């Protein structure tokens, strides 16, 4: 039953993806992107990743969509018709896909407990979490305690990106002001 629900949701995800790739109206594409993120969150719940699902629903479907719509408001809604034929990209993407599908034959089947990923360090946290930290949600204890440095690095990345965005946009404001001043002077003279 679990794997059937999983299969149906994943198929829906694939259909939405086809829509995202084919549509040329960017507003529709961004809204489809929001639907995609909510579907992804549902898939993640079926895959038992509840914390990730919450983050994906709020960040992927919420913040990303709002950011994209804001930028769309400042630019153009309709995408231009491509001037090149898409043969080379199709070939590159298709070739990569074929090689990757060939690679899946070497991977363990879905949902088994005795695969390498499920028998080593990940599962050790399940036994250690309560005695070490007293936190029942193991994802939280690994994120904030065992791998706290990862989270620190993540915060650094987000901080750097924030500074980058501020610098980019502030410089834009000053440049636009400069250009307007130049135009005014030109029109005067």
């Amino acid at each position, binding site marked *: 039953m679990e794997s*059937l629900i*999983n299969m149906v949701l*994943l198929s829906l995800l694939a259909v939405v993806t086809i829509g995202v*790739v084919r549509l040329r109206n*960017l507003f529709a*594409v*961004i809204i489809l*992107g929001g639907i995609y*993120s909510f579907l*992804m969150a549902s898939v*993640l719940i079926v*895959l*038992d990743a*509840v*914390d*990730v699902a919450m*983050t*994906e629903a709020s960040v*992927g479907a919420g913040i*990303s969509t709002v*950011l*994209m719509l804001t*930028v769309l408001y400042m*630019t*153009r809604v309709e*995408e*231009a018709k*491509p*001037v090149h034929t898409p043969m080379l*990209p199709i070939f*590159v*993407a*298709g070739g*990569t896909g074929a090689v*990757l599908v060939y690679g*899946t034959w070497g*991977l363990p*089947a*879905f*949902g088994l*407990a005795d695969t390498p990923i499920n028998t080593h360090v*990940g599962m050790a946290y*399940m036994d250690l979490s*309560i005695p070490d930290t007293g936190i*029942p*949600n*193991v*994802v939280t204890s*690994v994120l904030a305690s065992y*791998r706290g440095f*990862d*989270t620190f690095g*993540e915060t650094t*990345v*987000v901080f750097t*990106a924030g500074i*980058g965005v501020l610098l980019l946009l502030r*410089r*834009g404001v000053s*440049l636009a002001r400069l250009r307007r001043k130049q135009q005014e002077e030109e029109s005067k003279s």
Partner: protein
Amino acid sequence: MEVLQPILAHFNHWITIFLMVAGLYVVVARGNMIKKLIGLSLFQTSVYLLYISPGKILGGTAPIIGDNIEVYSNPLPHVLILTAIVVGVATLALGLGLVVRINEVYGTIEEDEIFTQEDDDE
């Protein structure tokens, strides 16, 4: 169910690959910068699936320790992907900031139109 077994065993992988390839195609083939960023996030979300799917154990439950529960799914991929999602939105914001700047300077976000403007300037 029995007939579906061989398909179910690798279905997650195949969808992951499909999303990844779709993202790659959009990034390479489309000239619109917002569309390119959307393709990039398609690629990114396919990586979430790539990590989370193998950590799932059928019949298991979310890794929150409770009474009378025997089987839990693997918590480690969840932690890694939580970090990836937040870093992903940070890079997306930076990319969109660049798009806004490019639009201010060139008046367009289409790659081809920017190239023709550059050629005309020379």
